[in-house]
């Protein structure tokens, strides 16, 4: 997925931008992301006269749109939930007045669709990873049609211009963002569009200022650490829900009776799908589940992993549940001929295992873009500065379609706990390190008591922390002074924040978070004016695209899309300077 790190491709996604700092050109430009809390004076963000002009009036409807790969959600700011959710799918891509999908004799030929778009791709708004070969105009068209449906069917609003707040995945490549904005501005005439990133919206929607947002998304899993409402670091893995559906197909295809999926005359395709995407997606949603962590519960207890949230006795019922033998019947309609599979229920956890963990392989054997999720979460935390990590690890927000896989959140959480128990927060691994760790003296030396007595549900006892000091010490170290914290301490609130222990919290969701932000009139930085977009945005379209890109690389915050031209100067010019 990711383009080669060094070469700045024209349509580079933010994924690359934000991948771990290498010797790439970005390093001298970026501040070292390891110390986000220490503002670097050397990098001066342009003077803040970009303040958004939008002071949202209460009586005015503001529309909040949350863009996902497969659906968009629309509603009014201030509402607890979106009014409607529109899914992208082949039926939406038909001409107006074409009702063939409803004809009794019509059967959607998924093989044809797969041949044209790729298996399941016709259910996606965009293929986030790669802009090349993407019809950006088509993305605009899809957005327009879906949003129109959202407005007409769910929001019941007329076409008077209204302000919009859009929640985009933070890794969205700029050309796609630009296509989306083009479509919105030209077709719906909003006076302004404010941009929010989903991790920040999710944090606000969970009531926290910092969080580790684990987005088990469709195209990929993205882990974003948010610190004081700012995205600090993003890591990603192709192990998303789409991959889960792929694995589900693999499982089902394996069980298909031989010959039932007779090869089509053109057996040349490298990947032969025997079942429709729609059917596999459906089964993945309905039947697939996730096995609990292999780490024996007894060990966890002895080791004092009581720190884990909600770890009560009921957990032990999970293994017993799976021991029950059982088979399940799954009717399949998209293969030739239709059949009903009868497979062991146990096997329905395989797709999840393969898609998200691949635990049969050594953990060191994975490429960066395909890390198993437990490792991905661990690494994301590991790469954070201590203070940030301490906060983020206690504010893990699971979101995305993957949260619907029963047991998956718990599994990731437990596996991460296990890794942490094994390794602590040391980037170094190996035998020597293990020995050092085994030495209690060394261990004690580093241990430090948590400064704040935990008040949260998951508060570990002091003894537990002591015993478990290897990893808690790092997390509880607070080398940096947090100005906010300081201010709060000065202020009325003396309650310390929960930190240093793994804890998962629930967010009301990105859409609802954005609704809340807008409702609170917390103005967003990148509010784009329609007129400016249509003029400057177009005049700079060539530039804007590039500029946007580099601006996002540095910041989609201050300066945002419009002032980006003033932002970066050095390395990006080499590529786009001619523009």
């Amino acid at each position, binding site marked *: 997925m990711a383009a080669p790190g060094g070469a700045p491709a024209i349509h580079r996604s933010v994924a690359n931008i934000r991948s771990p700092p290498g010797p790439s050109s970005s390093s001298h430009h970026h501040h070292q992301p390891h110390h986000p809390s220490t503002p670097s004076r050397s990098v001066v963000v342009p003077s803040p006269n970009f303040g958004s002009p939008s002071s949202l009036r209460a009586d005015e409807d503001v529309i909040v749109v949350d863009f996902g790969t497969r659906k968009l959600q629309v509603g009014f700011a201030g509402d607890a939930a979106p009014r409607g959710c529109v899914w992208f799918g082949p039926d939406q891509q038909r001409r107006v007045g074409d*009702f063939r999908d409803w*004809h*009794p004799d019509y059967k959607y030929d998924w093989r044809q669709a797969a041949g044209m778009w790729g298996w399941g791709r016709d259910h996606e708004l965009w293929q986030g990873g790669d802009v090349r070969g993407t019809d950006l105009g088509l993305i605009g068209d899809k957005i327009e049609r879906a949003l129109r449906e959202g407005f007409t069917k769910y929001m019941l609003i007329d076409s008077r211009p209204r302000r919009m707040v859009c929640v985009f995945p933070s890794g969205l490549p700029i050309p796609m963002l630009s296509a989306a904005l083009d479509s919105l501005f030209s077709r719906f005439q909003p006076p302004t569009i404010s941009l929010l990133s989903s991790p920040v919206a999710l944090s606000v929607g969970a009531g926290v200022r910092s969080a580790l947002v684990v987005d088990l998304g469709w195209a990929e899993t993205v882990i974003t650490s948010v610190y004081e409402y700012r995205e600090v670091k993003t890591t990603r893995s192709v192990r998303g829900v789409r991959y889960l559906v792929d694995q589900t197909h693999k499982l089902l295809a394996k069980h298909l009776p031989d010959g039932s999926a007779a090869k089509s005359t053109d057996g040349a395709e490298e990947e032969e799908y025997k079942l429709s995407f729609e059917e596999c997606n459906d089964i993945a949603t309905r039947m697939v589940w996730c096995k609990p962590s292999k780490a024996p519960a007894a060990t966890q207890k002895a080791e004092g992993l009581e720190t884990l949230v909600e770890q009560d006795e009921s957990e032990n019922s999970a293994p017993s549940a799976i021991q029950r033998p059982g088979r399940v019947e799954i009717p399949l309609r998209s293969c030739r001929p239709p059949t009903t599979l009868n497979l062991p229920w146990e096997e329905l956890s395989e797709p999840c295992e393969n898609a998200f963990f691949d635990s049969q392989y050594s953990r060191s054997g994975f490429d960066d873009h395909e890390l198993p999720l437990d490792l991905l979460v661990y690494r994301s935390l590991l790469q954070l500065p201590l203070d940030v990590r301490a906060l983020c690890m206690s504010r893990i927000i699971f979101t995305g379609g993957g949260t619907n896989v029963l047991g998956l959140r718990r599994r990731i959480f437990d596996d991460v706990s296990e890794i942490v128990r094994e390794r602590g927060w040391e980037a170094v691994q190996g035998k020597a390190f293990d020995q050092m760790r085994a030495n209690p003296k060394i261990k004690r030396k580093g241990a430090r008591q948590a400064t704040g007595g935990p008040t949260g549900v998951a508060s570990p006892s002091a003894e537990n922390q002591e015993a478990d000091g290897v990893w808690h010490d790092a997390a509880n170290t607070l080398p940096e002074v947090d100005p906010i914290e300081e201010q709060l301490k000065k202020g009325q609130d003396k309650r310390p924040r929960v930190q240093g222990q793994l804890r998962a919290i629930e967010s009301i969701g990105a859409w609802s978070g954005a609704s809340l932000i807008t409702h609170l009139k917390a103005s967003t930085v990148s509010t784009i004016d329609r007129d400016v977009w249509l003029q400057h945005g177009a005049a700079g379209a060539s530039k804007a695209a590039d500029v946007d890109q580099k601006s996002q690389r540095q910041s989609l915050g201050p300066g945002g899309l419009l002032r980006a031209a003033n932002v970066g100067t050095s390395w990006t010019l080499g590529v786009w300077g001619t523009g």
Partner: protein
Amino acid sequence: MSSRRAPRGEYIETDTGNKVARKATLVGTQNIMLGGKTVIQPEVMIRGDLIRSIQSSTSSSAAGAPPNNTAVAIGRYCFLSRGACLRPPGRHYKGAFTYMPLRIGDHVFVGLGSVIQAASIGSHVHIGARVVVGEFAIIKDYVRVLDGTVVPPNMVVPSFTIIAGQPARVIGEVPEGGHEAFELRELYKTVGNNPHPAPS
């Protein structure tokens, strides 16, 4: 439309312009009201015998007027295609089973082999082939029911709606420019004992 050559006298043409195929089955004709200019093709069945067995006490016609025994009322310029079946809906009412009248407005097309048990169907309604309209469904004006749809009992379909599916659901709205397409005057001329050709 098919260019089938109709044998002489296939249809009975009434004074009000109704064209009723001789091969249509109309049961209880005294309870079937035709508004005029309605075409009833062969093999159509209309169950006029299924009349209301309990007179509604609240009905205004109860006072003095003869009991209203209409089982099926059809307006003008309706077109009932071959094999269609019109059947008044029935249900329990105050402890006894009774049929209720089936009312159909003007310019209503009923496709091949469709079964209609609605309480009412408005005007300018197109019902496709092999459709089932369940008991006591109410279909308002300017509605298009696509082929093969099953309209569940009691469903209300508002005006300017396109429905399809099993069970039926709203899949679209009839656009402003689509109203004229419900007109059945031209179609009326194309059948009967002296059919006019379809306009080009």
